[in-house]
């Protein structure tokens, strides 16, 4: 049993912290307010090697383990949950399926610009009628000569408006049930691909989210990922490792909420003493610190299992549901510690509380995580 990170992991964490303080902290409030996509920061993340961390060097990645990547997501999310998520969804959900299921040609073609951050990736699975119930999707793909023709509408596509490369899912044989869905790599300039409505979100406002509409969208047959019928398997695999990133993001948000709360509680004087001297506040901080450690150890364990090549589906879901829920709970408490000031725009905890909510929803709701965990416990 060893709770110690390697020196490289500690240095990556430290350097990402410094990166975030230098480039992200100064703009985090502004991009939350305006909903602007921080393209300059994402480009810089790419230059620094952070946009393809856990993928092989031969495809432009940095070749780190998954734990190191998750640690970096936590540090970045501590400064800006939207930027942390942009990195996480790109890395886990767009690059993940190409790396894990792509052919050698596909990896050589698509991964290098994605890993270098020159291209941004998106994962288009959700549809208006198909959220947790992926099988309710209606998008279809029909082979026509050397091309697949895609028709359907995807929604809530993270990075949608700014992505260069999409991984998307469509039925190639609806009658085959879960084995009838296939995954595809779609470049943004594919004919018939259109970015639909941009969504205004409650939190992670600098992360860009939109509909993606495929109308007779034609892509080369060579862009089929992992063979016809493997779409569902690919989607589930993506979610397994994506959840580790979201758990790390949630820990980053909660850590920021706690640090803000501690600093404020030591400064804020009521009844002649700092509120940090009140037992109620002390207990809230104690609970925050305890839950954050629990959540951090949960995501680190899930990442470690993945790095060892061991099963980690249940553990990733545990890390995600616990991390997200403790993040929501304590970001609300952080606002409470700040009192009226915490309810005012410009206070970091106000943003953190809005950002926290999405962690309970995307990449599998808390309820979906419980389904996964229960299925593992009761089978």
């Amino acid at each position: 049993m060893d709770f110690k990170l390697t020196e490289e992991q500690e240095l990556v964490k430290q350097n990402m912290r410094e990166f975030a303080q230098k480039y992200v902290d100064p703009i985090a409030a502004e991009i939350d307010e305006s909903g602007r996509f921080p393209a300059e920061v994402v480009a810089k993340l790419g230059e620094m090697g952070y946009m393809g961390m856990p993928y092989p060097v031969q495809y432009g990645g940095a070749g780190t383990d998954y734990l190191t990547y998750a640690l970096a997501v936590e540090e970045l999310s501590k400064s800006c949950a939207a930027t942390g998520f942009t990195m996480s969804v790109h890395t886990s959900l767009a690059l993940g399926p190409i790396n894990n299921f792509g052919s050698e040609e596909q990896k050589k073609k698509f991964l290098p610009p994605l890993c270098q951050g020159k291209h941004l990736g998106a994962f288009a699975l959700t549809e208006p009628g198909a959220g947790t119930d992926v099988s309710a999707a209606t998008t279809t793909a029909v082979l026509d000569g050397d091309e697949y023709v895609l028709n359907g509408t995807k929604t809530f596509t993270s990075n949608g408006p700014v992505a260069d490369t999409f991984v998307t899912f469509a039925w190639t044989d609806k009658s085959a049930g879960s084995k009838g869905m296939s995954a595809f790599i779609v470049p943004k300039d594919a004919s018939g691909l259109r970015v639909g409505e941009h969504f205004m979100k409650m939190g992670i406002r600098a992360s860009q989210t939109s509909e993606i509409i495929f109308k007779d969208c034609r892509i080369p047959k060579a862009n089929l990922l992992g063979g016809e019928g493997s779409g569902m398997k690919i989607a589930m695999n993506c979610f397994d490792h994506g959840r580790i990133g979201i758990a790390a993001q949630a820990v980053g948000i909660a850590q920021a909420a706690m640090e803000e709360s501690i600093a404020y509680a030591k400064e804020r004087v009521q009844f002649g003493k700092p509120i940090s001297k009140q037992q109620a506040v002390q207990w809230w901080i104690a609970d925050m610190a305890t839950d954050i450690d629990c959540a951090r150890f949960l995501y680190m364990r899930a990442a470690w299992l993945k790095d060892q090549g061991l099963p980690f589906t249940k553990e990733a879901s545990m890390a995600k549901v616990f991390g997200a829920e403790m993040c929501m709970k304590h970001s609300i408490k952080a606002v409470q510690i700040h009192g009226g000031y915490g309810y005012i725009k410009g206070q970091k905890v106000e943003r953190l509380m809005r950002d926290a909510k999405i962690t309970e929803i995307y990449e599998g709701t808390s309820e979906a995580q419980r389904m996964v965990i229960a299925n593992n416990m009761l089978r």
Partner: protein
Amino acid sequence: MPDILCCYKWVADEAYIRSGSGGDLDLSMADYKISDYDKNAIEEAVLLAEQHGGTAAVITVGLPDDTKGIKDALSRGPEKAYFINDPAFVDLEPAQTASLLAAAIASPIPYDIIICGEGSSDLYAQQVGPRLAEKLGIPCLCYVQKVELNGSELIAHRKSDEGLEVVKVSLPVLLTVVPDINNPRLPGLRDTLAAGKKPVVEFTAEDLPSIDTAALATTATKAATIKRNSRLFDADAAGIEELVQELKNSGAIA
């Protein structure tokens, strides 16, 4: 093509130092880092090597466990590290550190320019650089904020209270640099991952002549405290007169 050697100190990060119950410094939570101005020294060494060819290497004195510092330093660009370490090297004073550095460098380690930070983030004694130059018998220029290198001649801009002093010197030379000299780069991910693969040459106490025993005895290191009198004076003529008298008594005004 100059060989540039750069000295750094691995210090407790002041952000994590707590004040203990007895007013002492509690380092138990402290993370360690490369001393702030030493990052400028490393950056300048790497910049000079990039501009003029040659090599940049780092050298440090520390405990055997301080290997994270080596990787941190190497991730910032130098291609080699010299690591003088021994379990006995605890709280060395500047004269001892300078002796160890000088002995290792004389072993020999090739150099044309040695760069140190002006002072360390923890003690800021500003002594290791000048003492090392003295032991090596080479010129020392302190408070350097700009360097120009032309072959074997170096021009240093030195910051002083009176203004700027521009000095020309022949190599070899030792410089101590101030933070204005550059903005240290942030290592990229690949730099961090590659650092562990760069060569590290180790020296232990056995490899070097024994150092003098410490001349200084540290009796205590205490956290700085600010005492406030918090006395209220009335806002009338008598109160103001009282305040002025109090300030005179305390020596705050004459």
